[in-house]
């Protein structure tokens, strides 16, 4: 048998059911891998005791013949998820010491299915960032290196720790969340698969809120099949999240037929950006050829409001964040600043938030406060919400015209160096291809399909119709089959 950490989720499930390995062995192998991977700074809170207990329970279930797909599978959990009795800081200093008294719905569902939690994963503070550099834990590091260079690269963000951990084989799969591209961009930067489901597919209850109308959790895995398996286990209606959809959850894995003959794939001309690197254009053309080879019809389409997605996002997301993050005031949980003689409660709030929030979070909270303030609400916030309506209509029109899925690049570049010192706007441009999907509430998946000249992974994005994650993953499977992406980072950590 291959090394246990090299198994896919599906492979591990089958090996567990066949009695070829145990959850305890799988868990041990991954805990050892994590111990040796401190340099990646992917796992920031380790939970080996919980993992061993869960593995033991999983083995008992498997022995009893009661083994759901996730039973005994070691996973990592983004620090944004509240996990009972385990530090859950959203990568922020302001939640230092916070140990939730409750379990998020998604982690509850996964644990009920027998999944094993190895620990919590690094991320940008409150999921605000595209490089994992805004984390209070320091940077997570990409296991990939560019050519012969020794420079440390970003794993992307905000789910940077999740991406690094899955790519470096520290866990079989990880939970991520995606508000503007935070699953898909890091997946593309690390050569793994990540899907953001339709808004409402997975419960947001117990997931620290950034921008509630955009946030959605999803799996990050080493292939499409694994994503389908984990997404099935994560999805479903939750009475505790009023925006979660009361819809039946199909067995997404069973929908991976690999047959997309006669489907129509749209290629949006607005995603061909000025100054886009040649390697991204080539990657895209290759992907088009792969889907054509799989029997799909390829059609050029137009999504005319694409250009306005990022500006609309940078009104709506900070506006919602400024409201959501108002709860961090030093009263009920987390950090409270020491206050001076004569300071009242306002000074306590102001000092607590100044100490607890990092620069990017402060910037976004203040931008959000500004766009919602009297006199600017209509000019910024309402206008952005109208533009959002138009962006969603763009997608509805092409779907009504017979498009089944849309193929785009996942990111405008390969992973870049940590410490590259981009301006906020330059950093925001990372999400240029992914953010439209959040604004329209659609499912989107990033699949690794190639490498650039320096050997770094590159990914394509597929965008699907609402609630059609199964159909979307099936197209992604076709891409994966034809791309044959098998490269792995060489271990240096």
């Amino acid at each position: 048998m291959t090394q246990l950490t090299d198994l896919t989720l599906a492979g591990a499930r089958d090996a567990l059911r066949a009695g070829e390995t145990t959850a305890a062995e799988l868990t041990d192998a991954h805990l050892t891998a994590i111990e040796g991977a401190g340099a990646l700074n992917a796992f920031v809170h380790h939970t080996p005791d919980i993992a061993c207990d869960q593995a033991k329970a999983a083995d008992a279930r498997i022995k009893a013949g009661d083994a759901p797909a996730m039973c005994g599978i070691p996973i990592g959990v983004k620090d944004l998820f509240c996990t009972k009795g385990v530090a859950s800081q959203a990568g922020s200093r302001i939640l230092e010491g916070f140990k939730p008294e409750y379990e998020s719905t998604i982690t509850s569902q996964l644990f009920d299915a027998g999944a094993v939690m190895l620990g919590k994963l690094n991320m940008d503070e409150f999921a605000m960032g595209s490089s994992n550099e805004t984390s209070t834990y320091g940077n997570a590091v990409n296991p990939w290196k560019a050519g012969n260079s020794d420079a440390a690269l970003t794993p992307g963000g905000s789910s940077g720790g999740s991406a690094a951990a899955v790519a470096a084989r520290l866990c079989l799969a990880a939970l991520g969340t995606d508000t503007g591209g935070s699953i898909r961009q890091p997946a593309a930067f690390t050569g793994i698969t990540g899907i953001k489901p339709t808004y409402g597919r997975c419960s947001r209850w117990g997931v620290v809120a950034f921008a509630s109308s955009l946030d959605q959790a999803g799996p990050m895995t080493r292939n499409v099949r694994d994503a389908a398996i984990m997404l099935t286990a994560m999805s479903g209606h939750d009475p505790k999240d009023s925006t979660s959809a009361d819809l039946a959850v199909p067995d997404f894995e069973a929908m991976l037929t690999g047959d997309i003959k006669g489907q129509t794939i749209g290629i949006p001309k607005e995603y061909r950006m000025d100054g886009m690197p040649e390697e991204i254009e080539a990657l895209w053309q290759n992907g088009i050829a792969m889907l054509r080879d799989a029997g799909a019809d390829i059609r050029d389409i137009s999504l005319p409001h694409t250009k306005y997605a990022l500006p609309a996002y940078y009104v709506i997301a900070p506006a919602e964040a400024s409201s959501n993050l108002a709860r961090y005031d030093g009263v009920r949980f987390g950090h409270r600043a020491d206050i001076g003689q004569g300071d009242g409660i306002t000074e306590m709030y102001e000092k607590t938030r100044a100490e607890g929030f990092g620069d990017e979070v402060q910037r976004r909270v203040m931008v959000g406060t500004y766009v919602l303030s009297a006199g600017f609400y209509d000019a910024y916030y309402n206008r952005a919400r109208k533009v959002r309506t138009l962006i969603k209509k763009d997608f509805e029109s092409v779907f009504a015209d017979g498009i089944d899925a849309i193929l785009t690049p996942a990111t405008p570049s390969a992973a870049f160096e940590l410490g590259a010192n981009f301006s906020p706007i330059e950093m925001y441009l990372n999400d240029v291809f992914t953010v439209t999907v959040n604004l329209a509430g659609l499912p989107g998946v990033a699949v690794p399909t190639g490498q650039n000249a320096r050997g770094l992974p590159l990914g394509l994005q597929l965008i699907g119709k609402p609630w059609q994650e199964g159909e979307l993953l099936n197209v992604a499977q076709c891409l994966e089959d034809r791309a044959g992406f098998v490269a792995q980072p060489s271990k240096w950590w």
Partner: protein
Amino acid sequence: MSIDKETARRVAKLARIAVPEDRLDPLATEFNAILGFIEQLQEVDVTGVEPMVSVTPQRLKRRADVVTDGGQPQAVLANAPDAREGFFAVPKVVE
């Protein structure tokens, strides 16, 4: 639209974030860069367009108006920076 130092001060106050005096000017510059980027939205013709309220068309579910949870003051207070006698404790708010 341009943000000056005084607007930056006001926004920081509204957001309840203490910003030192010497950070206000750089902050105003950062805001202006971001607002300049957002300004593109003014080009879009939004006549007759409804602002989005819900991205997926669905009726919010209703549930029976009954207590479903509660009675756990210790769990509620467990993470408080300062809790006394079953309450959150804060600095004096009235003289």
